[in-house]
């Protein structure tokens, strides 16, 4: 999988591309937690996530909790169908702040 970060409108857009599984979720976690440590607002672009497992979801949960503590923005945007299915299975689709598109996430 790939992680692509870019600055946009004062936030960091982190695009996760491919399969976020146990092999790659530690990298995703570190990437997101570094941004949380810098108190950066983050929009996670999940449009190209083909697969995500419990370890990937756990990375998102951890970042979400850190953002809440910081009072910074942490939004999951354009969540792909396979990723949405797993969020629903975890009943986290009602917990995370979701946006239909990255643009919507930036202005939320």
């Amino acid at each position, binding site marked *: 999988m790939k992680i692509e970060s870019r600055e946009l409108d004062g936030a960091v857009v982190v695009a996760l591309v491919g399969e976020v599984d146990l092999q790659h979720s530690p990298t995703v976690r570190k990437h997101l937690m570094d941004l949380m440590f810098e108190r950066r607002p983050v929009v996670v672009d999940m449009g190209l996530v083909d697969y995500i497992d419990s370890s990937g979801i756990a990375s998102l949960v951890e970042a979400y909790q850190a953002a809440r503590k910081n009072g910074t923005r942490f939004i999951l945007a354009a969540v792909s169908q396979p990723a949405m299915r797993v969020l629903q*299975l*975890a009943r986290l689709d009602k917990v995370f702040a979701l946006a239909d598109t990255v643009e919507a996430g930036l202005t939320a």
Partner: protein
Amino acid sequence: MRVEERPQHLPAALADDLDLIAEMTADFARSLDIEETLRLGLAHISTRMEAEAASIFLMEPGTGDLVCRACFGPTDVTGLRLVKGQGIVWRAVNRNATELVRDATDDPDFAHQIDNNTGFITRSILCAPMAVRDERLGAIELFNKKGGGSFDADDRRVLQALAASAALALINARQAADMAEQKALKHELSLAADIQRAMLPPQRPPEFPIHGINLPARGVSGDFFDVVELGDGKIAFAIADVSGKGMNAALLMAKTASLFRCLAKRLDGPGAVLAAIDSELAETSSAGMFVTMIAGILDPASGKVQLANAGHEPPLLCCGASQSRIDEGMPPLGIVPELFAQGCPESVIDLNGGALYLFTDGLTEAGGTGSMLGADGVARMLAPHRIRPAPDRLRALVAQVDEAGLALKDDLTMLVVEDVRNQPIMNRQYQARPASLSQIRHDVGQALSALGISGPVIPDIVLAVDEASQNVIRHAYGGGEGELIVQVRGDHDHVDLRLIDFAPTIDPACVCPRDLDDIRPGGLGTHFIREVMDEVEFLAPPPETGNLLRMAKRIGGHENRKP
């Protein structure tokens, strides 16, 4: 080599001699073609030592004769052969001492015949042997000091020094040539080994009914196995061991393998194939070489095997906990064609849910310290690996042979023919590590498709298998090394998945889904599994394994079935 500046206090003649020795030694040392250098050097030596003629004799390997390899002067006797003990050259070589003959006519060993043949008149001779340690290489012989005098003691010392350095150069050159030859031979062997590996059948998916493994003890192997799919869904197979080892065995193996591949599809039954190979081998194979071979045909639909055995190690039939040897058979192939004139008898074996193991004596004789492993030993070694998919089972057995210090003295080849009628549609072994998960997901997805399942239930089940695999990797093995077997059974209505590991057995009570109201990272996996699957249970693990997790799901709704 740099020649030292001539010291001023040496007599001019001695200084010249030292120069000659230094020059020639340097030439010998850097020479690539030492005999050519000796030929050129001979002219140089003759001129500087004021000889009218000179010859170099080298000992011919094999005959032990001294043969003239280079000449200088008015007559050319290159190729002249001196049989043992003949003349002054042999005297120098035998005594390993430089011979100075001031008047040849007085010397009883002088061979007048050569002068008579060539017209050359020999007066004095100086002959220095070339030898290194005990190895006699030849001699340098000078004839007639120019100006009518004889060679003297100083000449003797100079030629002796030159001969010693020439001898060393010869030995070096020969060793270099030997090494180059060995290197070339090694290269050829590795090419032959590559070709042999290419002759082995391709690796099939683990669920395929027949698998083989071949480990050559040396570069090339005298063993082979082959698996050929016949048109009617049946599968022909063979295992063979060629008598002897090394290149000859490898070549005969290549021939036998080609014959099998060619005949398996054309002839009716393994007996006919063996009889045909026998008549071909008996006609052309070299004396004393023979082939032990089993050929067979598996009908995967009935689980029955047609088998013909020509002198090969009896195969082992393993059904559940019982084993039996299939003893019937003929003598080896390639000995006497009449033996197979009436054909080769076949037996029919019902695999009955079990597996037939065929092997070469590399396995049964891998008993270390002279003891034989034997067919019972093979069965004993197989037992702990029975649960593994066939290719992994063969690898585990071979690894065990190695681990027990039963170093391979012989090529080791093994073939397993399984009744796959009640086997899982997917049965694969993986290293229990995160990097395997992507492959596991891919393989499970394909197996579900193959069962006729489609739609959104596939990613759900794949997620459950992934999460269960993660539990094995993270919790059962605790991050340590190990293997994980994933099995898929079922049909378009119902799927049964099993994960088997070799980790310490865990207490199922400790595996519980987390409370979803408690939002925190981790602990989600087990919840996913229970959410997706209808049944999740730990079953009693098969012998020699750690844990067996069974997950099942009924596939409802048309959206999850292929039209």
